[in-house]
């Protein structure tokens, strides 16, 4: 019994170490963003001046707005395409369906460099200059599978009976979708949108190839990093970090096996 206990403690200690490894770097970024000096040893005091400097950097602010715009547009397109695609793949049967599913997943599974380069090769061959539109194309490529697979797993749990019942009771397809299906997948859609936005928000690997002078925030920061890690880089990193965390917290309420439970518990309205 005691050796079992001992093993349990060793495992827990190991787990604690892994969590430490996962979170210490993030904490360090946060600490550095408030440090008046560039070193952490002998760090004295606390300053917000790097954050103030961020707001004075017009290019950085513009890049931030660009990121929000691209994220919003990519998520909007992905929700429409991904939801339609999820119902199509879940409900339709046709030869080559599993191939279709795999192909949808490719932009997410394949290394980002491959998607970025292949889209770049095509748009260059077509003579299309790099623009916000090309960045958006890149982001639509990987946000669609994110949304589609989130919605598909909700559809799988929902089963086809509710729609059949609505149809039997005389609802037309539009009414069935609006009054039965949509309320049931609503939380999945919100969760998928948040997830897709989070992914789009800090995507760089694909964006890097498709960005011209109109830069998104990660591409802009990547440019800043060429001149070393300035305190400003830490400040913007800290903001991104906290924003991502907020998005994930919000998302976790809407997705997963616990979403329905959450919905049932949530007060009306």
């Amino acid at each position: 019994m005691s050796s079992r206990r001992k093993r349990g403690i060793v495992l827990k200690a190991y787990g604690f170490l892994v969590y430490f490894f996962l979170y210490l770097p993030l904490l360090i970024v946060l600490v550095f963003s408030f440090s008046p000096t560039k070193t952490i040893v002998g760090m004295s005091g606390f300053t917000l001046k790097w954050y103030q400097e961020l707001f004075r950097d017009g290019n950085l602010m513009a890049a931030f707005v660009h990121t929000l715009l691209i994220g919003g547009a990519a998520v909007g397109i992905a929700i429409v395409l991904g939801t339609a695609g999820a119902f199509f793949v879940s409900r339709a049967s046709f030869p080559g369906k599993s191939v279709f599913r795999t192909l949808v997943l490719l932009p997410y599974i394949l290394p980002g460099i491959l998607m970025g380069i292949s889209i770049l090769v095509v748009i260059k061959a077509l003579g299309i200059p790099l623009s916000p539109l090309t960045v958006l194309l890149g982001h639509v490529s990987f946000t669609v599978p994110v949304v589609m697979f989130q919605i598909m797993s909700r559809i799988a749990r929902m089963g086809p009976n509710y729609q059949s019942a609505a149809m039997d009771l005389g609802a037309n397809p539009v009414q069935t979708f609006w009054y039965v299906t949509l309320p049931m997948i609503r939380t999945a859609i919100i969760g998928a949108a948040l997830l897709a936005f989070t992914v789009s928000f800090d995507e760089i690997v694909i964006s890097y190839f498709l960005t011209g002078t109109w830069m998104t925030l990660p591409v802009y920061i990547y440019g800043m990093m060429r001149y070393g890690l300035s305190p400003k880089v830490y400040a913007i990193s800290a903001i991104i970090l906290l924003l991502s965390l907020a998005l994930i917290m919000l998302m976790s309420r809407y997705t997963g096996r616990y979403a329905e439970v959450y919905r049932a518990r949530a007060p009306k309205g």
Partner: protein
Amino acid sequence: MEKRISPPRTLLRGVPMAVWMLLLVLVPLGYTFVTSFFQVEGLQIAAKVTLKNYALFFTDPMYSGILAKSMLLSLAIAVLGVLAGYPLAYLVSFRVRRGRQALFMLSIIPLWVSYLVRIIAWRTILGNKGVINSALVASGLIHEPLTFLLYNRFAIAVTLTYICIPFVFIPVYTALEKIPRNILEASSDLGAGEMRTFVSIVLPLSLPGLVTGFIFAFIIALGDYIIPQQLGGTQGIMFGNLIWSQFGFAFNWPFGAALSFILLAITVTILGLTSRFGSTEGGFIGE
């Protein structure tokens, strides 16, 4: 089983997805493949079919050497990712009762935290004036900063392992959660200790998740070019950087396309080989 095809009206709903797939997946990948048989003349890409891009890769040992080194490093990263991620998933799935949901979230949150921020964090930790060096110098243990921490394969391995842990955690955790707990009770009732139960029941049943996680980590590591660029220095050039440089200053897109296609072939082969064995669900987008 009889194959059934849905009526045309249902199939019509697949058109938007099919258009998306054509425009953003099939045409780009297909055209990249075509480009890999072209060549550069002056500063133009000439549509003259040639095999010399592939010939260059297979004859010049420098290129295949970089690929071999990258695969080896990616293998090490995948192993490290499993060594960190598997015990964590086991701990959360089997050993924690209260706060399991919170620990689950804590394990996958890093997945969604900005990739760039995590790179910045590791440069900060491993740098010459970084956290580790400053702490060691300040404590008097060393006088000169350790230089083996940054700008080499060690730094790449640490950072990519860090990135890969949640990717290993999710499929392993999903597999562990599926193991019926009464089998474990039966094993215990029959006198098997925890170790025996783990080796003969838990490990084999979670193997598909383990394989999936391992493959994810390997593919992520093999395709990365930003981490080697930021933390790898000159000795840490990986296959991704080689591809990247063909589109940058080397300006040899057809050769870059050929290298991309080689990476695609490796990735798809690995995914294809393991899809029968590993679990496809519980992947990294799954709930």
